[in-house]
């Protein structure tokens, strides 16, 4: 395809996606509360952000919840994705896959409501969880994050095929050694990107946390949401610019890693072509 035609296809969407981001980046450095006119370059909104105690507290809480939830989601999601890709045929496989896909398509309000009701019922029956707060938010985020991890792991294992594992078994490796030495390294990149996805989804969630959380736990998205209802300040844009920088660094790093360790050379190193 000619470059001109390609640009015509790609540019409108990229312009639409990036225009608001560029706007935030520019106005985060504006020396005025107004979002209309440029009055001068300033770091004052970054300073204001740094001095905003409640917001920083919420950010720390959210990072902790996201890290815990992503790790739990990775543990369960990896097992679920592995079972779907390598478990062979088992009874109820369609139902299993449907249950696993449910958190991907269900609207947030339904996920939030249903998990809250689970916590309420379990509290009434066995007394746990004793209170709703950061703990219940973590569990809820893990339960939808796992679906995304599972999709990622399953896709990677299906793409990779079973030849490497078969070769290892033919060469006399016992099943657990095959898993540890072949399957695990094969799915490692998918596990890592699944963890990151679950982490981001947790950091992005307002609705589920509002349902299952308690009065003591206000996450960063919850705080941003209630602040945005009152009005957006350039402080938001300072935060957005920092997040964009971190995301760009992480994505760039991941891209370099993928270039350094693509799927094919793994097969080549193992001597399978």
């Amino acid at each position, binding site marked *: *395809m000619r470059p001109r035609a*390609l640009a015509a*296809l*790609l540019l*409108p*969407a*990229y312009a*639409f*996606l*990036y225009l*608001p*981001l560029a706007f*935030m980046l520019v*106005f985060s450095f504006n020396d005025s509360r107004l*979002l*209309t*006119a440029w009055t001068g370059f300033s770091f004052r909104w970054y300073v204001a952000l740094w001095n905003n105690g409640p917001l920083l507290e919420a950010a720390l809480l959210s990072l902790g919840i996201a890290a815990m939830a992503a790790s739990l989601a990775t543990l369960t999601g990896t*097992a*679920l994705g*592995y*079972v779907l890709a390598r478990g062979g045929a*088992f009874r109820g496989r369609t139902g*299993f896959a449907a*249950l*696993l896909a449910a*958190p*991907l*398509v*269900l*609207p*947030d*309000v*339904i996920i939030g*409501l249903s*998990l809250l*009701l*689970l916590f*309420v019922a379990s509290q009434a029956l066995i007394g746990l969880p004793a209170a709703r707060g950061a703990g219940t938010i973590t569990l809820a985020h893990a339960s939808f994050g796992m679906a995304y991890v599972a999709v990622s792991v399953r896709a990677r294992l299906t793409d990779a095929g079973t030849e490497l594992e078969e070769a290892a078994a033919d060469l006399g490796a016992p*099943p*657990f050694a095959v898993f540890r030495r072949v399957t695990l390294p094969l799915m490692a990149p998918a596990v890592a990107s699944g963890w990151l996805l679950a982490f981001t989804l947790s*950091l*992005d969630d*307002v*609705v589920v946390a*509002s*349902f299952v959380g308690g009065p003591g736990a206000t996450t960063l*998205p919850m705080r*941003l*949401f209630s602040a*945005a*209802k009152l009005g*957006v300040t350039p402080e*938001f*844009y300072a935060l*957005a610019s920092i*997040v964009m920088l971190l*995301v760009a660094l992480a*994505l*760039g790093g991941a*891209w370099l890693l993928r270039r350094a360790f693509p799927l094919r050379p793994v097969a080549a190193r193992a001597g399978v072509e």
Partner: protein
Amino acid sequence: MTPRRLLLALCWAWLALVVALPLGIVLVLAFARAAPGLPPFELAFSGGNFSLLVADGFYLRAFVRSLGIAALATMLCLLLGYPLAYGLSRAPAAWRGALLTAVMLPFWTGFLLRVSAWIGLLREDGWINAALGALGVPGAPFPLLYSELALQLGLVHVYLPFLVLPLYARLSAREVALEEAASDLGAGKWTVFRRVTLPLSLPGVAAGSALVFIPVCGEYVVPELLGGPGAETLGRVLWAEFFANRDWPMAAALAVAMLFVLLLPLALWRWRAGREMAG
């Protein structure tokens, strides 16, 4: 018990606990009655919530409104996302990784922050109105925020990647041989696209559209921040029943009705597609 059976049993138990059981409780609660207390309901077996859903015009209007908003957002996402996904799939292989990463970057940059960018752009003292005023457009500033336009801009910005990724996956798995055969047999570029590429990409279009349409019907945050009071999506109605009215059973009944309306067609379509593939 072999390790494989143990793993399978554990996976089943976990899925049942965190997915099936909660949805089951929602179904039970949909037949309960609201009552003062903590939690604010008493178990019953009454269809009252559902008859109210059907009888009260408010809920029906919210259903119709939600489906309309979601259909428009899906169409706009397709208009912008199909050329993007197609262009991505035909871009030189060396650029593709970077171009895809560039689609994902906004997605990873928290959606609340992106919605807040639209608030700043669209509000009456915002940048777009300032630009229009500076250009001398009569009538500026316009009330752009809290409108259908603002809602759709925000929704498309948030949901575009969900449509583009499955569509791109489908378009790059295209059957090159079929396209080459078509052009060898004398079909023009447009004919190849219309008769070969487009039909082959339809499963991707369907998958991507479902990933936009269903969550948008239940969306709460974007309509709350960008849409006016008229943007009553089902997500907002459910939220209001739960938090403002403290009517948990009614919220549960709404959830069940949503599942029924949104997921049943999807399940039927998947089942038919599965049968067609099998037979």
